[in-house]
């Protein structure tokens, strides 16, 4: 029997989703990723600056990201970009997030049991 996945924390998977989405557009290094998330979400979502790296490394181990060392302005950086597996993962995560967001929106705007607020 297929079991339904629980959502113990609504923010679960959000950093992954945002990182994959950003890196799908262009390769970036850690600092750039954190700044980009802050700028593009108008600072509504702020990822812990240092804790972004375990997420990046985990995604790389899973094969969703690949990295390469690049020297820019005399500094060696580790740039990350999305792999084909990462694109699939992004599609899955996006779908899951859209479903969740739609469900919450439906709840907030009133479902079959009337207005929530």
């Amino acid at each position: 029997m297929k079991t339904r996945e629980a959502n113990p924390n609504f923010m679960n998977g959000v950093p992954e989703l945002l990182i994959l989405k950003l890196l799908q557009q262009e390769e970036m290094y850690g600092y750039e990723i954190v700044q980009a998330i802050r700028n593009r979400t108008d600072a509504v979502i702020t990822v812990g600056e240092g804790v972004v790296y375990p997420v990046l490394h985990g995604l790389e181990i899973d094969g969703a990201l690949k990295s390469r060392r690049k020297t820019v302005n005399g500094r060696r950086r580790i740039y990350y970009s999305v792999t084909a597996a990462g694109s699939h993962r992004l599609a899955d995560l996006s779908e899951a997030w859209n479903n969740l967001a739609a469900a919450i929106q439906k709840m907030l705007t009133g479902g079959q049991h009337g207005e929530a607020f």
Partner: protein
Amino acid sequence: MAKPFSELRECLLRAGVAPRHVRRYLTELADHLNDLKAEEERAGHSPADAESAARIRLGGTDELAKAMIEQRQFQSWCVRAPWAMFGVAPVLLLSGAYLVACLILWSGWKFFLPGNDTPFVQIDGFAIFYFGIGRVLYFGAPIFVGWGIGFIAVRQRLRTVWPFVGLILITLIGCVAQVRVRRPVVPGGAGHVSMVFSPDPLLRAACFMVYGFFRLW
């Protein structure tokens, strides 16, 4: 480079995070910290204020460590499967070294000493070098493997139990291993080299130690 994060490094290694992941994490954190400092300085802060502001933005040691420790995929194999790393792998390594040493002995006997009943005779020229490699491998393998275990244990801040088990295993095998050779059945043919694991040397050493202990006492 990783000096500002020495506490974090210790914390991660003691929690069993693999050294290669720790190294990379600290390298990227150090780069990130420099970027944050530069950003804070551009915003008009003094270098000291910029440093402390950058530190706060990067996260505290506990927060940074927790993010890494929570993911099991970053744990080293020495923590995930210590029985394999300190029980099985050293024995396999030692077996491999003994196999190569026996092959060197057998091939050297065949090529340099054809017709001899044993390879343990006086040799000269290139044969000294050739047999020397086998000899170093045979006698050195338990020591090298033991050093390897010690090195890994210290590098990864491991508790002593499993490395100690590995060292005991290697010591026991190293003590009881013996090379045996049998002369060729056909004159001029290849002899037979094998290994036996006899407890005799161990028993002799134990008797000697007991005897020595009572003599001293």
